[in-house]
């Protein structure tokens, strides 16, 4: 039976998380199709068709998919799933996928398996529970498996495919909700979820001004994304979409620099799968040092400019 991945995109191109989700889907046995729902999304469809391992792109192009609202997209996925006889429906565990997929699962009367990090077999998956303090292996007894994928657990697929693009009929506009406004943080830096280096700051920075003045030059030098602990976000240093942790973003870069972050378990849940973790904190007892590969006990206001100068 074929497998369906739901693409996350911005009309013109794909969000990086889609590549990781396709990678997870490739671990399953079946022809791989990707659904792109949007308005004027030919660019995203073309980018999807080029993904390694994808055999068909289903393109639903309609004005009422512009906002990517859960109600309309979920209804479309359900009708595509029924028509195509898919065994698995997968989406990234981003705010997009988390918003849409449980709706799909409920409409199909099946369970959802959230944030899988490994695939044991066609019906058995591994997922973290309790903020990653335990890993549960769960087996689904449902005919269709609805899954969200923790993107950091699967290496993204590259290009090299040449899938066909098939336009499909859009579903009706349910008109249940209206998007009023959307304010996306403008940044030249890499996306937090896809960055290979992340410079992350905590309460130790003391203020939003310090956060930017101290961390931005370092992030610029390393080509890094900027992240933050919940404490830094709650204190108003940076916007909420900077938050790394159990309830924020889950990241696993090559290098994670935790600066002025004590290391609450909720924060560790979001970054402990990073390849190399560096912690800089003036408190030698900070729990972050228990998981850091390299720890430096120092005043960050001295250490970070020095680090920046040494790089």
């Amino acid at each position, binding site marked *: 039976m074929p497998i369906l991945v739901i693409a996350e995109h911005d009309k013109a191109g794909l969000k990086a998380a889609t590549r990781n989700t396709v990678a997870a889907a490739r671990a399953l046995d079946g022809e791989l199709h990707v659904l792109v729902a949007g308005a004027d999304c030919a660019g995203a469809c073309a980018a999807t068709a080029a993904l390694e391992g994808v055999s068909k792109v289903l393109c639903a192009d309609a004005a009422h998919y512009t906002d990517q609202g859960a*109600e309309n997209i979920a209804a479309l996925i359900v009708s595509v799933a029924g028509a195509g006889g898919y065994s698995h429906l997968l989406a990234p565990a981003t*705010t997009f996928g988390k918003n849409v997929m449980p709706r799909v699962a409920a409409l199909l009367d099946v369970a*959802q398996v959230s944030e899988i990090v490994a695939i044991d077999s066609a019906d058995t998956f591994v997922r973290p529970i309790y903020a990653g303090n335990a890993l549960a*292996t769960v087996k689904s007894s449902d005919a269709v498996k609805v899954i969200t994928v923790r993107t950091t657990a699967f290496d993204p697929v590259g290009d090299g495919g040449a899938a066909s693009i098939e336009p499909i009929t859009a579903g009706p506009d349910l008109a249940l909700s209206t998007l009023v406004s959307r304010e996306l943080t403008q940044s030249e830096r890499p996306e937090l979820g896809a960055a290979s280096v992340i410079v992350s700051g905590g309460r130790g920075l003391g203020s939003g001004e310090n956060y930017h003045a101290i961390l931005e030059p370092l992030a610029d030098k390393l080509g890094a994304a900027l992240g933050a602990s919940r404490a830094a976000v709650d204190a108003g240093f940076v916007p*909420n979409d900077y938050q790394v942790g159990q309830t924020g973003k889950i990241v696993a870069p090559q290098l994670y620099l935790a600066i002025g972050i004590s290391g609450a378990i909720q924060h560790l849940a979001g970054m402990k799968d990073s390849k190399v973790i560096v912690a800089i904190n003036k408190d030698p007892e900070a729990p972050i040092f228990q998981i850091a590969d390299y720890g430096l006990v*120092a005043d960050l206001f001295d250490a970070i400019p020095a680090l920046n100068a040494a790089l």
Partner: protein
Amino acid sequence: MKILVPVKRVVDYNVKVRVKADQSGVELANVKMAMNPFDEIAIEEAVRMKEAGVASEVVAVSCGVAQCQETLRTAMAIGADRGILVSTDAELQPLAVAKLLKALCDKESPDLIILGKQAIDDDANQTGQMLAALMNLPQATFASKVTVAEGKVSVMREIDGGLETISMHMPAVITTDLRLNEPRYATLPNIMKAKKKPLETVTPDALGVDVAARLTTVKVLEPAGRSAGVMVADVAQLVDKLKNEAKVI
């Protein structure tokens, strides 16, 4: 306007859970339990709407074992008017909870249902969206601001990369994110008062809901631990390690 707020009893967020030796789950015996923090935010939001004169009644619901009554009493101490316990010893998964809540919503006809975006035990992040789907209602997940005006509810949502605001007709389903509000501490007089508030108990059978689990837990393991690395003396040594040992810069 009536608001229904489901609340879940979970292991307290300060507890470091331990995986059982037989790999069947995590150790829950003699572990401190509390209301899921996101549900506390949901109750707080509903109570604030009542205090602002926007809502007239706040009903708290909990599904699970008899001890969930304590969670409901906590919700009533924060300010919910009454509680409903859907009493069962069965393991409840999100789809089953969504079906139980739908059955209650069919009886109670709330204008808003406010839930926590996820429970900190199973980290599933599903129930609100599933309930909205089953009831064919609009949903606004990950709310950081909720405003009700002229029969509509407008919700600012935390999304990857920023914020968005959506407007919905009511009834509607909202799930809370961390920054929606800061829940109050229940005061002693309110805790005493909560003990006298009505608490109704129903069963899944009485609601006509099949709560059979769709997912079976095969095993639960401790994740591969990450051991502490080395402490470096200064910035120069750190740069040297990153360049020559870890080779990440």
